[in-house]
Every structure is written in structure tokens, then in C-alpha cells.
């Protein structure tokens, strides 16, 4: 294989493999893409995988086991850049639903008892960035084809990926939807990173936050707005927790302090 082609590896930690599947789903365009880069490792797509030096590693899934941790450290050591793809890699995903470390220990005991787990111990799920440096994030559940191709193209051309940093609401207005919050529906659009094209509100369903926390999300205002609309604290908490992984941890911590 040509030496100056970009060496790429696609890896899955703990996740549903939906992001890798989305990459495969690029079909025709993927074939062309695979001609322009050198795919060294992509277990879902091929069997002759080489675990050597890489220019770009695309990592799906959260770190939820000891072996996930080992893999991600190993990948980091041999790659130029590392891209977290999908909400699990970016924020921990559903499996990292924010639980207290003590609470997690209790749950662990309920599941495994006192038995020592020999080969692959479970860890409290964390996003990739909790273990190694992440260069770029491509959120989504699963990721969006077009955004993936745009990101990889940018990296292949030696520039940095670029996204319009906005919440889902912006795309929701582009789609000309009446705001669900104004109809008292619990919509997490303002707290969620844009990128999906606001598909849920466009189908009259509230956003549940699957693209992951928006970096400038105003949790305090949304939280109180929903209380103002008579939503129960626990319901709001559950909704905000379901896809945000560790993304809103700081907010929940301050909330806890305020209650005590």
C-alpha cells in the first residue's frame, strides 16, 4: 500500500457498533474513500487488520471494561490523532448515565456479588477523554454520514474539522417547527448539540438529547423553565441524564450542593 496515504483505524469499545455501521453504510462513497486512505484496521469491515502506527484512529464506544481501557491507551500510543465518534465515545453514552461512584460500587456488588471477575473487569463507564487525549469529537447516536465524510475529508487534507457550534434549536428553526417548549413539551433541544437536523422536533417529537450535551448549554435556565411548566424534578433529571453521560455532571453536582 502507498506510503503517503493516510493510515486509518476504526475501533469499537463498549457501544452498539452503530457508528461503525454508519461508516459502512456510506457504501459507494466508502469504496472511493477507502481508495484514498489506507484502512489499517476496521474489524467490522475486514479481516486482515494490522495493529501498527496510525495517522487517525476513530474510536467508538465508552470505556466500560479493563480491556477497553487497555485498548484505548494502546491506540492512543500509536496514533497521530484520535477522534471520538458517537455519543458513547464523546460523553459516555447511556451506559455512563451519571451515577455516584458509591452508587456505582453498590450496583456492581448487586450484579457481581463478591466474586472476583478474572479476565475483563467492569469499570464505571466513562467517555474516552477520561482516559486519553481526544483530538476531535464527532457526536451523534449514531453519527451522521455526511458529517463523518466531511470530518474525515478535512483530516485527510490536513485541516481541522469544523462544525457550526449551536444547539438543536437552531436547526429546528431552520426546519420551521413551532417550539415544543412553548407548548409545554419537555424538549431538550436547547441543551443538545446540533447536527442531526432536528429530526425529532420536525416529527413533532421532543429532542431527548441523543447528539450529546451542547457545550454552552444553559442547564440552570432549562431546568427551572421545566419546573415552571410543572414538570417533576425527577422526570427532568431522568430525561437530562439519559443521553448526557458525564456531560452535565457539573450541573448535577451543583444542584446537589444547593439542595443540601
Amino acid at each position, binding site marked *: 500500500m502507498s506510503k503517503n496515504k493516510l493510515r486509518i483505524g476504526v475501533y469499537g469499545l463498549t457501544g452498539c457498533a452503530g457508528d461503525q455501521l454508519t461508516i459502512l453504510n*456510506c457504501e459507494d*462513497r*466508502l469504496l*472511493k*474513500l477507502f481508495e*484514498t*486512505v489506507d484502512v489499517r484496521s476496521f474489524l467490522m469491515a475486514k479481516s486482515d487488520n494490522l495493529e501498527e502506527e496510525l495517522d487517525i484512529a476513530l474510536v467508538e464506544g465508552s470505556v466500560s471494561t479493563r480491556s477497553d481501557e487497555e485498548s484505548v491507551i494502546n491506540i492512543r500510543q500509536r496514533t497521530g490523532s484520535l477522534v471520538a465518534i458517537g455519543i458513547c465515545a464523546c460523553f459516555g453514552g447511556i451506559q455512563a448515565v451519571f451515577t455516584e461512584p458509591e452508587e456505582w460500587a453498590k450496583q456492581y456488588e448487586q450484579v457481581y456479588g463478591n466474586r472476583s471477575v478474572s479476565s475483563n473487569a467492569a469499570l464505571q463507564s466513562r467517555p474516552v477523554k477520561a482516559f486519553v487525549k481526544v483530538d476531535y469529537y464527532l457526536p451523534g447516536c449514531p453519527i451522521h454520514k455526511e458529517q463523518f*465524510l*466531511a470530518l*474525515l*475529508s*478535512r483530516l*485527510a*487534507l490536513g*485541516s481541522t474539522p*469544523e*462544525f*457550526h*457550534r*449551536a*444547539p438543536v*434549536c*437552531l436547526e*429546528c*428553526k*431552520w426546519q*420551521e*417547527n*413551532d*417550539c415544543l*417548549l*412553548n407548548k409545554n413539551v419537555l424538549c431538550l*433541544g*436547547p441543551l443538545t448539540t446540533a447536527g442531526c437536523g432536528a429530526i425529532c422536533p420536525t416529527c*413533532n417529537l421532543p429532542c431527548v438529547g441523543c447528539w450529546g450535551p451542547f457545550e*454552552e448549554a*444553559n442547564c*440552570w*435556565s*432549562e431546568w*427551572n*423553565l421545566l419546573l*415552571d411548566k410543572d414538570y417533576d424534578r425527577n422526570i427532568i433529571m431522568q430525561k437530562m441524564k439519559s443521553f448526557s453521560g458525564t456531560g452535565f455532571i457539573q450541573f448535577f453536582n*451543583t444542584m446537589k*450542593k*444547593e439542595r443540601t
Partner: protein
Amino acid sequence: MKVIKLEKKKLIPFLQFISQERELWAPVKKNDRIIYDLIEDFTCIDMNTTRTLLPPKKVIIPQQFNMFRVTGLGYESDYSHAVKKILFGIHPCDIHGLLILDKLFMQDHPDPYYIEARRNTLILGLSCWPDEHCFARSTNTHIIREGFDLFFTDLEHSYLVWVGSSAGDDLIKLKPEFFEQKPTDQDIQDFTYMQIERDTSYKTKINFISMPDLMELKYNETFWEKMGRACLGCGSCSMVCPTCNCYNVIDRHLISEETGERRRYWDSCTLCEYSEVAEGVNFRKNCADRLRLWYTHKMQAFISKYGKASCVGCGRCLLTCPVDINVLTVSKSLQGKDVYAYWNRLPREASDDKSSK
């Protein structure tokens, strides 16, 4: 300006006839929302709507579009958004909105993408009746004397039609037999009464005369901080405002196709990224500063430069902002009035208090 008359039942056949070689865009109802859309079924046009969700700026400059494509051979501009169109059903306030965009995009810094689309779009205005959120009377944008090719005033059984340009006159000439050249005395009387009644139907009023001074005098009032705490930074207010004009540009390369494209998107100064510069430095990291900018632009800076507010009283921000930040609540706060609004009852975060001590 010539004024002629059209029987109501002839309007749709007229629109059908004149749009044979142009796209016709008009308000239609789609899943409970009223939006400007490309018309295929002419019976769907909503003649009685008060306002559309997005303003007609979307017909000139779409929410997102390609500016050009790059291939190995060079680059090709893409003006596919600027095909020949007729924009029908646009109300006086929204025509004023376009006139404001014209100042921004056609004068000091001509924007070819705007200009091309604007030149290719014929404006066919339609009279309207205010609801409780309209305050175009206060911004003096409830009537229109320029900026249209034809303007249809609804007089129950017929329309009085103002011919505002030679392009408008050419449209009439396509079907002259549809029109009566002279309105009757009765028509003129009906029109006069209608105008007076409409004029007194604006229930929401804002005194804009004092706004530039109040913006200056109340620049540091605490209500800005309160609004800043509540603002979700969602950008909705800018998307729905007929005079908001900012955009973002992103280059997308597709190595798989060996092409690239430059895409242009509507943007908003209420988004944090908007005021970010190199090295991640941000001039308006604080949301209150961003809101102050939005309102300074509408109610002060634009007035200094162009002699009128950059708000046309359409009421869209009143209906859109989930946390009640809008021209009405902001102007009331500037006037020192009590405001019943979510942002005004949002408690402070305990952590905020700590950090400010």
C-alpha cells in the same frame, strides 16, 4: 402609483397564469404551522394568515445553501437559490423587513448571493389584520409605499391592487382583462374605513422614540444580567426575525468525490461561537452581553445609521423565545416597567452568588 381592482375569484387564476415561468412562493399551512413554501397546489395558499413562522427572507436567502463548488478544474458559483420567483402574500411589515435587508446587503457591502436572488424575485404584497402580538403601528411599518411590484388590499369582495413597479405593470399586462381599471367611489370609501379601523386595531404598542437613549442610559441595568441567566442561547429569535441577517460559512471537502463546497448558514449573535476569534478568545462570552448586542443593533445602532429601528413589529420574537426575552419585554424593562416574564422570575443559581461574592 396606479391603483386598479381585481375580483376576488380571479386572484388564483391570475397567480397561476403569471407563475408559468416563475416559482410562486406563498404562505401555506403545514402541520399546524404557517410557512412560506413553493406552491404546487394553488388552492392551499393561506390568504388570511397573520404571520409565517420564518420570515420571507428565507425565500431570498435560504436557511442553508451552497455558495460554490470546487473541483479539480476550478470553482463554479452556485446560484440555484436565485431562480426566478414570485413572492406572494407578503405583508407590509415583512416588506419593510426586506427593505432593511436591502440596506445591509445591497449598499456598502454588496452581497451577490442576496442581490441576484432579490432581483429575480417579484414582490406581491397582501394586506393583513393585526393580532395581539403585532405592533407594526409602533414601528411605522404597518403600511408600505415602496418595495413591492404589486400590492393587494383585501376589500371583502375584491382587491384594490397597487402597481408599484414596471415589472408589476408587466404582470398585469399578461391578463389585463382580469382587472377593472378604476375602483368605484364605494371601493374608495370602504378602503378608507378599513384603514381607520385597522389603524386602531393594534393592541400592542411600544414607544420606540425613546429607545436609543434608554439603551444608552440603561446599559448596565441588572435586568440584562437576569435575561442573560435565562437565555438558552438557542438562536431562535434571530432565525425568526425578518431583519436578522448574520450568517456563517463552512467549507466542506469531500475527498471521496474530489470536490468541495462552501455552505452558508443563518447564524445568530446569541450563540457563543459567534463572537469567538482566533485562539478561542471570545469578546462576548457572557450571554447578557450578547443580548445587549442584539437589542443595541435593533433599537439603537440601526437608528443612528439609518434613522429607523431594525424592528418591523412583526411579533415573531414575542411568540418564539421560550424564556420571554423579546422586544416587548426588553422595551418595557428599558422603560422601567414591571415585566411578567420567565426570565424575571428565574432564581439565581446558588453557585452564582458564591462566585460574585
